[in-house]
């Protein structure tokens, strides 16, 4: 589609007023009424979730206004650091088994994979100048981290459960003369595969079962659907690359931590978290 047509779509963006948001909240009221009638007991949680959604997103909008100012590099760095820390913490918290220093390993993996992918996409694919232009970097980084932490948490959960539950088999392999890599490669492969399942599933059904949130948002904001689709393709590839890199790095770092150079498995370091 020619550029003029794309510009025409942009001009169709509808500006939402406070009244529009209040109207939308009526939809949540309907859900609350259903809960009340069916005695599901979800009204309070629904109300709290709705309030949190409004406060958090309006706050985010306000902060991003500041961050998108050209001179706020320090604020940008701070926000990126907070995003990385929060993502690595959340990624590890979902795992049933952990060991000391796991969050730090997650931080390393998310930082490397997310920053690498973001720089490639903003600097090379989209061609933003500078590559850290907040308007592009923050949303893209958010999408990468959101998916990366899901990948990491599945990968870590699978790997630690496997190493813990199969200690006997892994040590049997080691006792028969396997190197640590030969003994660990099965659980490592399964864990990386597990971490990649959500993004692979999303890529398989995208556009058929569901229209992704980012593409929907762009279309609602008046963008040309063809352009929105192209952006979405870039985003899907970006998330796939970042998630796979993140899972592989995490699995390798855990492997290095739990198998020492005497080719022993240190399964005793793994602790089950009881909540």
């Amino acid at each position, binding site marked *: 589609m020619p550029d003029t047509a794309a510009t025409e779509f942009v001009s169709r963006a509808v500006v939402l007023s406070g009244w529009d948001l209040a109207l939308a909240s009526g939809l949540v009221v309907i859900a609350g009424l259903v809960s009340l009638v069916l005695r599901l007991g979800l009204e309070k949680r629904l109300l709290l979730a709705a309030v949190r959604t409004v406060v958090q997103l309006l706050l985010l909008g306000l902060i991003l206004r500041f961050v998108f100012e050209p001179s706020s590099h320090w604020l940008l760095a701070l926000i990126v650091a907070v995003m990385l820390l929060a993502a690595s913490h959340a990624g590890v918290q979902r795992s049933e088994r952990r060991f000391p220093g796991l969050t730090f390993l997650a931080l390393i993996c998310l930082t490397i994979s997310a920053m690498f992918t973001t720089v490639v996409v903003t600097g090379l694919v989209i061609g933003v100048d500078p590559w850290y232009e907040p308007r592009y970097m923050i949303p893209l980084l958010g999408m990468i981290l959101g998916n990366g932490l899901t990948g990491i948490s599945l990968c870590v959960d699978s790997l630690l459960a496997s190493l813990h539950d199969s200690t*006997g*088999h892994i*040590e*049997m*392999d*080691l*006792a*028969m*003369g*396997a*190197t640590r890599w*030969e003994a660990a490669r099965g659980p490592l492969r399964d864990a990386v595969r597990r971490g990649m399942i959500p993004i692979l599933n999303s890529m398989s059904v995208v556009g058929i079962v569901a229209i992704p949130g980012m593409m929907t948002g762009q279309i609602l904001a008046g963008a040309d659907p063809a352009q929105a689709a192209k952006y979405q393709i870039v985003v899907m590839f970006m998330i796939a690359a970042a998630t796979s890199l993140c899972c592989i790095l995490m699995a390798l770092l855990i492997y290095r931590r739990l198998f020492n150079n*005497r*080719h*022993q498995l*240190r399964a*005793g370091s793994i602790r089950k978290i009881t909540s």
Partner: protein
Amino acid sequence: MLSVDQLTLSANPNSQQPLLEPLSFTLNPDQAVALVGPSGCGKTTLLRTIAGLIDPLSGCVTLHNQSPKEIGWPSFRQKVGLVPQRPVLWDTTVCENLLRPLSFSSIKHTYLPKDVQAMLAAVDLEDKLNEPATQLSEGERQRICLVRALLAKPDFMLLDEPTSALDEASIQTVESLLNKHMADTPGLGVLIVTHDRAFADRFCSRIIDLSDYLLQSQAVTDA
């Protein structure tokens, strides 16, 4: 020659508490040595430490006067075959379980089908080759693990209670297999943890009683 020199065992991986007095002994080629002692005194931990699966608090193990680091840990473990008390098999056929070590880079030889058949026949399991390993009885699984270790042609074998899950007839079968294998394999030395004193007396030329190495403060219950 497998030498254990002033080895101090750790009660668990995160503990600096010694399990026994420092231990020293030598296992020579063509020799069978039994390790006996009360339950919980550290017999299994000793075998796992000798195999290098856990670190000792102090002391060292050498094989033919070389440290495991010099030999390379995987090669060292291939030469010192450990058979644990609880049989560890994968959810595949008996055949695939027996061939598993061949996928490891430290194993430099291969097995011939006739070797596998002969070894299985020696423990009365020749008809189980293509059966799922997990469907075997505990005693059969234990014998499969023994056969798998013997096929890897180690210089020394560390056997943890190899007869614990076996009836009298199966004990005789395993004993015959070990005797025959030792006779057919010059240089093979065997270190056996056992509660079966009669088996130890019959099969081993030397018995090490870990009761002699118990710490003064240690309270263990006899089995």
